[in-house]
């Protein structure tokens, strides 16, 4: 590791604790959350997780591929997640699906 990389990891480490601790360390003041604020907070997980998932499925190599193995396997996994609510089944079926679809389409 070069000095630059060591400096980078230290800065990222400090930065991450600041980001993660931002609200948690001042949580005393957040005990009673007004309903309107709660309505906003409730949108954080679906919006953020979808923003992480969608590009990985639809832009696998950086280009829009709506019918590629990743997108189709994602659809299969989505169906499994929706019907079973089982995290493990979703992940395993999705991995098997992408392998098979890559063999079939690739």
């Amino acid at each position, binding site marked *: *590791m070069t000095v*630059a*990389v060591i*400096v*980078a*990891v*230290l*800065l*990222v*480490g400090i*930065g991450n604790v600041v*980001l*993660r*601790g931002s*609200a*948690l*360390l*001042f949580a*005393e003041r*957040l*005990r*009673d*959350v007004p*309903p*309107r604020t*709660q*309505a*906003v*907070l*409730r*949108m*954080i*997980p*679906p*919006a*953020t*997780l*979808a*923003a*992480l*998932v*969608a*590009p*990985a*499925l639809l832009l696998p190599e950086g280009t*829009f591929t709506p019918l590629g193995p*990743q997108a189709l396997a*994602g659809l299969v*996994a*989505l169906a499994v*997640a*929706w*019907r079973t609510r089982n*995290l*493990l089944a*979703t*992940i395993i079926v*999705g*991995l098997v699906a992408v392998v098979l679809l*890559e063999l079939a389409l690739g």
Partner: protein
Amino acid sequence: MSEGSTATAMDGVRASIPLLIGALPFGLVAGVAAVEVGLGASGSSAWSVLAYAGAAQLAAYELIGRGASVSVIVATAMVINARLVLYSVSIAPYLAGLGRRRRLLVAYLLTDQAYVVSLVRYREGLDLEGRWRFYLGSGVSLWLVWQVATLLGALLGGTLPERLPLGFAVPLVFLAMLVPTVTDRPTLVAALVGGAVAVLAAPLGPPALLLAAACGIGAGAALALRAGGSGGRGADDAPIGDEGPIGDEGP
């Protein structure tokens, strides 16, 4: 279904098992990526312990491989991890009663997975000690798996077969976590808008994630507040710790 029910650390571990299995290939991929850009196993572990960030670690390695400057590496990692502020804000009210040291540990262990698993359980109602133990079980087990998996990936390096779509486990883990957080129309809109903007704004690079999250949250919240109106009812306005189980609206 009240503040009175409690949980052990083992409950947190048990609820996290599927995510632990998903974190394993994710960690292997990150470990391999670290050695590919010349960080070595020690460098990989330094990143895993100090930064402890999945997606941001991968992005940082790619930039290191391209010889990017320290400021670019740090800025990119911060933008990707800015979503942790949202998680921090969202989970803080449930853990406000904990001492400062415990909250600092909660912060260090905060990941997409520990956050979602704990939040879903908290909404079913849990006393403060139960929330702490559940989070600790989830957070520590995820931390351990990440450390072991990234080290293993770094040590195995290029010997892992190329054909294994290990990287695809990453979006699948997020997808599996996403579905139980979509419980009504506003959360569905938040997810659809967040996903669509992330794809459309992808050319912007890492800031696209923040922009997409902001748009999704805005769209979903606008709908929820309009529907909820003045002091409305239902899940939108349920007091914290007294909300119904989030997974019970499935087909």
